[in-house]
């Protein structure tokens, strides 16, 4: 599954880098892999939002829903 890739430099604050490192640890992924996952998620949400769909978090127990507003 080797697809050609482009390289970029990313500037992050300490807090952002810390969050990224936490996600890497939690998900057992490299920094690149976490950021690629984030991009996929952002694109998927954007596509659904453009179709008119809404994005919710649902509490598993209470079934209470909270809409996530995308900027």
């Amino acid at each position, binding site marked *: 599954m080797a697809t050609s890739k482009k390289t970029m430099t990313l500037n992050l604050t300490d807090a952002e880098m810390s969050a990224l490192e936490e996600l890497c640890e939690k998900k057992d992924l490299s920094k690149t892999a976490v950021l690629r*996952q984030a991009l996929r998620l952002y694109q998927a949400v954007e596509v659904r939002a453009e179709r008119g769909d809404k994005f919710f978090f649902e509490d598993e127990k209470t079934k209470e829903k909270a809409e996530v507003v995308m900027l």
Partner: protein
Amino acid sequence: MSEFQIYLLEVASDAPIEGSLIEGITEANVNDWEDAWMPALARALQQLKEKGVDRRLWPQSRHWDWRRKAEAFKGLLAAPSFSIVCQGMTQGLMIVETLESCRLLQQKGKPLVYIQYLETAPWNRPGLTTERPRLTGVGTLLVRAAIELSRSEGFGGRIGLHSLPQANAWYANVCGMSDLGIDPTKENLRYFEMTPEQADAFIAKGV
């Protein structure tokens, strides 16, 4: 769009036949589904009807609309698709998703490649018609492609899927996946998951 050389086994001649595993589902693949798969499936269903086979035993994927599916997932980074072409004809199609997380306790929360849809051409499915399958290995190669994608994404070969009832035994026994039981949130289909170790074992089998 990447393309990889693969080999399928032609049942009639017992000989390997060269084909291609292609990243993506193209208009040509969807045309094959409409022009060749659908008529073949209709003939097979007619045979099942004439033989009085219980409809519950008919292929549950018979209502799948690959044109609609391909369009719905087109361009989504989180939903790569694959096709297998051999002898000038689409032999298998698959759409996966990369934003799902593992459920199996030992790898819970870690990312996996989730197989959303996987289907082989009607003439390759054992037991669907009275004729022998034409080519074998299509489903296996698509599962292998999902594992390789999982590895290249850093997911370690972890994959997951909800199986249609007729494929439960294949995912459990041939693929060696863990059966997490019926999922009431997904049409009561059984959920299967593969660990990195199971992925290694699957690939080592060389199926």
